[in-house]
């Protein structure tokens, strides 16, 4: 396993899911890559509303996604909602088609999140198959909005997005940092936002909750849950 990856088994007999520093989850047996909350086109939506957000964030995000899928040789990509931020602009639709053309063999599914509704049927035109929230894919429940704590048992392993989790780590000299994180509650993993131009929801530690912080070159189990992962 490469440095900066952490295997998680959500059920004792289930297959491992691998958390990645790239803010994604990889399933080796099904060769599927999971990401959440890219919010592509957010800057364009701001511009249309009269707020001059700069260019570049969406292209960068899409570029990273492509590199990641290519690097793993993924056969399937599952976006756990909020793939785009607002209704697709022509420019973004064209970028998506180009991205798709370069990966014709890749199977692309998008859970329809709250932001995706505005993108409408255009997904299909661009070669991304919209699926309901939730949908069971190869035994994994793919959701946008995470399950509430009281709905966690029983059920299949679940991956979700929506909340853009971040957590805080601190040390001597009153140093502290906010880092994106994965949140593992029982059978559910909530993924950090994959997009550039996204905010965060500060996660608090709770009994039975595992928090895995995403540093540039490694994943760190939040103190108390387990020892930091080292390759």
């Amino acid at each position, binding site marked *: 396993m490469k440095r900066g990856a952490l295997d998680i088994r959500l059920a004792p007999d289930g297959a491992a899911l691998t958390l990645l520093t790239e803010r994604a989850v990889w399933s080796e047996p099904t060769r599927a890559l999971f990401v959440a909350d890219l919010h592509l086109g957010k*800057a*364009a939506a701001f*511009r*249309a*509303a*009269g*707020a*001059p*957000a*700069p*260019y*570049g*964030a969406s292209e960068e995000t899409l570029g990273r996604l492509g590199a990641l899928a290519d690097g793993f040789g993924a056969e399937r990509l599952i976006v756990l909602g909020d793939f785009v931020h607002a209704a697709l*602009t022509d420019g973004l639709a064209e970028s998506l088609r180009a991205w798709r053309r370069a990966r014709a063999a890749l199977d692309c599914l998008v859970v329809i999140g709250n932001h995706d509704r505005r993108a409408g049927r255009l997904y299909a035109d661009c070669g991304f198959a919209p699926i309901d929230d939730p949908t069971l894919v190869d035994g994994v429940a793919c959701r946008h909005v995470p399950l509430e704590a009281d709905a966690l048992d029983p059920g299949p392993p679940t991956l979700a997005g929506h909340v853009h989790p971040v957590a805080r*780590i*601190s*040390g*001597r*000299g*009153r*140093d502290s*940092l906010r*880092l994106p994180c994965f949140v593992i509650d029982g059978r559910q993993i909530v993924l950090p936002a994959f997009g*550039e*131009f*996204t*905010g*965060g929801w500060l996660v608090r530690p709770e009994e039975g909750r595992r928090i895995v912080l995403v*540093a*540039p*070159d*490694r994943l*760190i189990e939040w*103190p108390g849950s387990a020892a*930091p992962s080292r390759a």
Partner: protein
Amino acid sequence: MAEARAAAVVAWLAERGWTPFPFQRETWALMRARRAGLLHATTGTGKTLAAALGAWLAYGDDGARRPLIRPADAGHLPPEGEGVASPAGVAPLPQGEGGGQRPPGEGSAAQTNIVATASHALALLWITPMRALAADTERALREAFAGVAARDPSGAPAWTVGARTGDTSAAERARQARSPPSALVTTPESLALMLSRPDARETFAGLRCVVVDEWHELIGNKRGVLTQLGLARLRGLRPGLPTWGLSATLGNLGEALRALLGPQAAGQGALVEARIDKPLIVDTLLPRAPGRFPWAGHLGAAMAAAVVAEIEAARTTLVFTNVRSQAELWYQSLLKLRPDWAGAIALHHGSLARETRDWVEQGLKAGTLKAVVCTSSLDLGVDFLPVERVLQVGSPKGVARLLQRAGRSGHAPGRVSRVTIVPSHALELIEAAAVRAAIRDGRIESRKSPDAPLDVLAQHCVTVALGGGFVPEDLLVEVRTTAAYAALSDEAWRWCLDFVSKGGPTLKAYPGFRRVVPGADGVWRVVDRDIAHRHRLNIGAIVSDAAVVVQYGPAPRGAKLGSVEEGFVARMRAGQRFWFGGRILEFVRLEAGTAFVKAAKGGGTTPAWAGGRMPLSTTLADAMVEAFARAAKGDYDSPELAAARPMLEVQAKWSALPTPSTLLAETLTSREGWRLFVYPFAGRDIHLGLASLVAWRAARAEPGTFSLSVNDYGFEILSGSSRDWAALLPDCLAPAPDLAALTAEVVESLNAGELARRRFRDIAHIAGLVVAGYPGQRKSAKTMQASSGLFYDVFRKYDPDNGLLRQAEREALDDELDVKRLMTTLDAMAARRLDLRPLERATPLAFPLMVERFREQLSNETLTARIERMLGDLNAAADA
């Protein structure tokens, strides 16, 4: 005619037992001569009447609502300039604002034909900085105009008065549009809003005079810049429009006048001093047992008991604190000592519900309250005659501020203004000694207008584009008539136009972006209705902290009590208790921006409101160094210094006293890390620059992460990794070779810190990058904060030359880190001998810095290195 009116003014004043002050007569004469100017006074009354009655004397004819007769009846129009006495039995107009207005006319037959001349009625615009003051001002003006009209032999109708603020209902606004009042009381934000209306030109077509109240409150900030731009627009609509400012005394009145009238017109402006010889007493409440005075804690019961005794001795007392949480704590302490005062003492601060504050203000006016614990919320406004004493808890922060608060007492004729400083820790004893010396010497702070902030200008451009549109060349000329933008460069103007029309510089225009659109006729307008709506929601130059309403409930819903910061509520769990508005409340739950609470018993926490942390003025900081110097020589020349003596002796024993010829520094190693304390006594803004610079220089020697804290006396740098401060210090404090080199260093330190990023939050808001509330979409202010941080990051990454980023950097450099003063401070420090003392425990000077919660961070380490260290700390803690 004019003389009769002047006689009416004197008669009305005489009926109330007043004779005009010389400064009032002077102002009236100047206003009747169509002059503009600034009326200033240290304390005292009469400025409002001077300006209001002056305007009436000069323009009374214009403001009075004249009948407009339908064309068929045009022959019945009364002679120009001559009012016609109203016949008895004529009812007032239904839209009338009250106050003795009667429709002139020739009898009941003409009545149905009387229509207000909407375009010519608004004669006087009265701008006040606080909307809470608008109602009081409205009342005062109405009373004055009704009083003088009743005694005006010409029988002209009285000036009507209205208010237009964020509190004004839509129905009232509609009424004002149909039938404008003669005088309108408003705020800088509401003025901008009126200027953003398509009918702005018509609204102000008959305007004859503008008065800006409490100009000293506005001049030094961006709201003042918004006001300057609004005034320039009004002068654009009404050339020659005279402006009058009312101000407390400042150290730089000439500059205040220049900012009010604009540099070109300031030469013709008059400076009138409202000289009222009113005795003023400034003293300090000294602890009964000076030797046991706490230097490291806060207040202590001893001071509360002394304050109770002072309150008891006076009829009505205002107890001023510096922050809201302090007011809450003091209110509790007083009630604890005197439970029988429940109902007789009250609490007043800006986060309490308007109804509560109104009730307190009524009680103050009526004299039914014994004492009110308050914050700057009662700094301004109408006078509370029963107030005899003012107590200032904690640092007075500035000479002018203390004088302003002192002026809230002793308003009845022949009474004395008295302010008593109540120190909350021993260092404030020295501040008290210093402020008394400064008042004795007549040293008062200056306030400077901000220099060409692009965010406010961008907002103004959109406002004017909405209010009928603009031709860029003309608007530039108009904008440059203001003091703030007199030196606006063509390049900055170009950028501003690009920003509002294309979202950025020409080379990198955003095609999807269209806030202001240049028309084929050369006029720039806003064409999108959503953008227009959003802009009007967002107008203003104050970015308030995210607030949550506190209300009894949820079922049944009860009274709204006020508001607390979102961050405070976010940390609350159901069942937790907290003090608010002087009561104990139990948190129930947060729902759609409302924190539901129920009444509770017992103790609780006190919410901390950020903001309102005012720096010690440099005038006062200088006076403080002098007081320290006297003490260091053993010259305890005032009761305050004598009381501080035990603390000063501890400081001398554990470390040393600061002196004019030495620069005191201290080091302390604790579990939290390696600490350095330095005491230049240069004021907190300079200390922030110095701390950033010293930390940056230390970081250059070896990468690191530092936590900085500053106060008005010095700064602290805390390093999480080992630092030999003694060895580093001489290099870290070395003067810079020149200003350019120092600026470069400070910019580098800025990029390693968070200062520019925080500055950017307000800039992004004012420039309209992020919006507090989108129409039809509840977007919490918290989301907005996160977004401005995100904006900062994406701009840094994808558009590093963006003008707003550069403004954030420039504001941090100029306002927070005054580089020129930093340079001279470094030189001055180099001339002093470094007196470095290793400490075993925190000294009286070090302690407040060590416990300071609001800290800056500076780092030039990689994320990975910082994470490594934090993990190391965690593992060490786990092994221990």
